[in-house]
């Protein structure tokens, strides 16, 4: 069982594991693995907390429904699974500023958190616009050979590569 305490597994082993996981999730839950709708439900849920039931009648929330569903549990599971893996290998640590970021933009936690917030806004907005994220389109959809997912996945990386170049080569 030594492999469970290793810090890193080879990327292909991890990928094959995720592929097998996608078989099981199709067989058992009839769903591909996906994440981003849960964040939209969270957003609607927070809004409902302040503004009450009328939030549920917004057209978008009529479509996705403000419930804790299978996918919400999956996202909670990811946090737990990652925590368990990191604790087993001693790779868990509290960290505000990733080292690659620090080497280009300094080690200010507030700057990093602010930029992460802005990035998150684009990410959340874009995921809803495209109808999925790197999990739902990037893995779950591409492996079904869905046209929508291949187009989205390619655009995720085009946008991401361009933005990373701008940040690290021009600004940083």
């Amino acid at each position: 069982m030594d492999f469970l305490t290793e810090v890193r597994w080879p990327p292909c082993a991890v990928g094959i594991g995720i592929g097998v996981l996608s078989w099981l999730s199709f067989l058992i839950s009839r769903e591909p693995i996906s994440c981003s709708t849960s964040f939209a439900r969270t957003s609607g849920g927070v809004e409902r907390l302040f503004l009450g039931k009328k939030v549920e009648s917004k057209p978008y929330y009529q479509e996705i429904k403000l419930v804790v569903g299978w996918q919400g549990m999956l996202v909670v599971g990811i946090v737990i699974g990652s925590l368990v893996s990191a604790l087993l290998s001693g790779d868990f640590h509290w960290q505000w500023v990733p080292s690659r970021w620090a080497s280009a933009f300094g080690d200010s936690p507030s700057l990093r958190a602010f930029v992460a917030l802005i990035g998150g806004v684009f990410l959340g907005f874009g995921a809803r616009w495209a109808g999925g994220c790197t999990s739902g389109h990037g893995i779950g959809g591409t492996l079904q050979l869905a046209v929508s997912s291949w187009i989205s996945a390619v655009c995720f990386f085009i946008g991401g590569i361009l933005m990373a170049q701008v940040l690290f080569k021009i600004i940083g």
Partner: protein
Amino acid sequence: MQAEKSENMSGKDRFPLIWGLIFGILFGFLLQKGGATKYDVIIGQLLLTDFTVVRIMLSAVLTGMIGIYLMKTLGWVELNLKSGSLGSNVIGGLIFGVGFGVLGYCPGTIAGAIGNGYLDALAGGLAGIVIGSGIFAALYPRLKSGILKKGDFGKLTLPQLFRVNDWVVVVPVAGLIFLLLTGLERAGW
């Protein structure tokens, strides 16, 4: 009557929440072991200096695709596709990409990053994703029959697009991904 009805419902429920949690735990465990919960690894991919993320994704797609299409051919599973349009997938994909590059996590890996103890993910990124999703929900009525429907093609697979048998696409795509993976391995990425 009421109780009987709800019992029937749960008997038919094909998506018990507990399975979502189990699959999530396994997925999070794998993401962390692969290094995909780390900003440095993800941004390294977008800067094209570290191909870990692409290697994970391609080997997942290769394995997943062969299994799912095998099970589909055997009649064990049905595909569960997202419908799409150029306006939705191209523009949304590019906006997502900008966020991906700025944040350095995506919606799945940010959950893993939080489990790994990364506070920029928790205090910055997570809040941002929730806010961005909320902005979209507010704008949705104005977008849904306009830009999101531009170039609509619905639920479509590549084999359907090319009007061929599934395996005519699965086999060459599998071969191509395999070549890419071996190429990356040889190049030492």
